[in-house]
């Protein structure tokens, strides 16, 4: 092979093998098919459901998916590092109780928010220690942590909602509007942009993906695998805590069982996202569109007057379909 290197280092492509080419075509199709389905869903609801395509309803969808998106961003960090965090739902619930409890007791807003996020930091750290130092698989460790938090949430609230005297400065986060657009939508957008930047444009994000992509290779490249798995789990809890604080602001009260739905919805969101852009990989962009997907379906089915248990069935089917697509078209092993 004495030929001089071709101009700009790019010699003719090595021909991919037949199976490889087939897989690539499948992935290319996959990359956009979920988006196409989303557009079709949107169009279908617009034509078939009266109040769907109105400004107020579209803003409503944005508001509805904002907390879900924030939880799912946290899950995305975990998935990127190949760790699953099943404690996010109850974590959101915990932060959503701590914030209002302190506010009702007269603490200033920054303290209440910091305490809620601090709880996220603490729980995330415990998860990280259990997974990376003790060696409990994240699936089990965080499932058990969820159970613990569920109990804690009822203990600290006595099973009652916490409300009354919540300051306006807090409630505006969940209920206010800016230029007619929900504050929550701005917060979600900010979270998406920041998370996207961290994952796609920083060395930190690259290392998180490297650890999830091939832990052995990452570590032999001098990357401290354990550290990035820990950070991913902590970030996951932090985003869950943030979502919980916002949820209580939206509801105007801290509810002991709030946030529970975010686990399954969040997983569905990430799985849908994994069919897009870089199939088999959890990406922030994929997660955002995954949340839109879930939001549009939930909203449309609601307007059609279908019961929540029908929505639950639909969601289950969506998760299975999304994971089936990802598993069959990529080499990904989820567990």
């Amino acid at each position: 092979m004495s030929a001089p290197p071709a101009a700009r280092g790019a010699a003719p492509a090595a021909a991919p093998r037949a199976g490889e080419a087939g897989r690539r075509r499948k992935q290319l199709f996959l990359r956009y098919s979920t988006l196409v389905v989303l557009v079709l869903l949107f169009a279908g609801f617009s034509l078939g459901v009266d109040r769907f395509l109105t400004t107020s309803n579209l803003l409503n969808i944005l508001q509805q998916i904002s907390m879900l998106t924030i939880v799912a961003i946290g899950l995305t960090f975990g998935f990127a590092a190949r760790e699953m965090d099943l404690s996010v739902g109850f974590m959101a619930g915990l932060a959503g109780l701590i914030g209002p409890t302190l506010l009702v007791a007269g603490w200033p807003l920054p303290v209440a928010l910091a305490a809620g996020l601090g709880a996220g930091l603490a729980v995330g750290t415990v998860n990280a220690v259990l997974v990376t130092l003790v060696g409990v698989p994240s699936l089990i460790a965080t499932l058990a942590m969820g159970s613990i938090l569920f109990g804690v949430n009822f203990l600290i609230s006595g099973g009652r909602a916490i409300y009354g005297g919540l300051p306006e400065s807090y409630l505006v986060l969940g209920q206010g509007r800016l230029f007619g657009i929900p504050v929550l939508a701005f917060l979600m957008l900010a979270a998406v942009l920041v998370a996207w930047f961290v994952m796609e444009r920083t060395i930190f994000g690259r290392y998180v993906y490297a650890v999830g992509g091939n832990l052995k290779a990452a570590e032999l490249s001098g990357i401290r695998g354990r550290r990035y798995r820990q950070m991913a789990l902590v970030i996951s809890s932090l985003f869950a805590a943030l979502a919980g604080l916002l949820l209580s602001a939206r509801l105007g009260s801290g509810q002991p069982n709030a946030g529970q739905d975010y686990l399954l919805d969040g997983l569905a969101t990430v799985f849908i996202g994994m069919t897009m852009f870089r199939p088999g990989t959890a990406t922030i962009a994929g997660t955002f569109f995954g949340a839109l997907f879930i939001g549009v379906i939930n909203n449309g089915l609601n307007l059609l007057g279908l019961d929540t248990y029908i929505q639950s069935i639909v969601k289950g089917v969506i998760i299975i379909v999304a994971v089936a697509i990802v598993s069959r078209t990529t080499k990904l092993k989820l567990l």
Partner: protein
Amino acid sequence: MAIELDDIIVDYPGTRALDRVSVAFRTDEVHGLIGENGAGKTTLVSILGGGRLPTEGRMRLDGAEVRLASPGEALARGIAHVSQEGSLVPGLTGAQNILLGAEPRRLGVVVRRAALRAQAQAMLARWFPDLTIDLDRPVETLPYADQKIIEIVRALRGDIRILILDEPTATLPAREKERLWAIIRRLPAQGVGVVLISHFLSEILALSDRITVLRDGRLVRTFAAAGATEGELTALMLQRGHGPTESGVDRRRHRRAGDRVVEVSGWRIPEAQVGAFHIGAGEIVGLIGLTGSGHFAFARSLYDAPDLEAGTLRLGGEAVPRVAAHEMRRRGVAFIPDHRMIHSLIGDWSARENLAMVHPEAGAVAPGILSPRRETAEARAVMQRLSVKASSPEQAVGELSGGNKQKISIGKWLYGAGGRYRLMIFVEPTEGVDIGAKREIHDLLRRLADDGAAILVASSDLIEIADLATRVVSFVNGQALGDLEWPNFSEQSFIAAMSGATA
């Protein structure tokens, strides 16, 4: 009775695993099967055991042609396979394991415990009347040799004439091996031929009546074991015939070791012990040894040694307290591992992303913040330097050829490195790489040495070592033996050194 394999060819995608191998296994012999990793032993016994059909070639059992499409068909013809990993259910007793799936039952449902015990005991006694093994204990509590014997007794259920044993003593402590050896030796007299795969040449010589050697998927020779020596076996396994040195003018005569980059003393890891080792700037040191002799593990332990038991490593005269990958990378040690898709690359990442794995900061616009444009420029530069053939830096690495993958694996340590590496460790640097890329990689290694890096190469390709190295250290059974200095290199001298003869 015998089973004959005629002109067997097995093709895997991209490689020919077996190339016209003909060999006969008899029921009155222990037949040793040896060869280095990748020689085709496993493929050959999977053909024999019905695990796979040959691409071409025929099999004859007592002269009649047979086609063994599954392990079940092989069993029905009297051929059983005991794999290396073991197939016992740890929590079940010896008796339950021996009759697993064939338990005596009442009404087809309820297992008859007493009958099960008696039958299992009878089977053990039929084959090995003088052995006492407690068949009522869970097998996980038994010595490893007894577990293997139970596995063998189970394999002999039915009318078995040929028993394939794949590395039967690999997991056994030394003192238990003899017990199993005695068992294996006795089988041919009872009408069961043994096909024995083992990396331990002493074991092969002690047990076998005949020995077959494979190399690179080809039959080297089948011969009577009596009178053969380990040295002869090693030579047959390794000898490829010496080609001409690839670079016309050998630059080694001008190469002189510079300052000592690394000094190691009293080094002990589970796989190897090295009393003293050193390497200097500009040197290319080759490590050789048979599979499992510890040379790969030693090379790797100079970069990442989580299970270091004892020893000190000095880098540029300074003692390194903890040998861990991130620490050694910072100190200027590079490690390019074998099995690149497992140890080095992420298949669905682009060439750019893979290259940027070690020094992503080279593509950063501000601390920690990446610029895809800068990354692309840096990746292009590396790909050009190594003449990587890819459609663009964005092509997924999994789609590249073996040689180009290996170049990316090496390129990770050139991307943004700017000659910062004092020691570069290569394990199997040209594994699964075509001849052109191999030459390019060899030239690159020489250039890196010329630029002042110390280059350590552990390889099972002796010709590669002969072509590259200025000094060679051979490993035997985990021990580093004396150095061989260029120009006293030849395949023969290497092989002698690897089989433990004094060089």
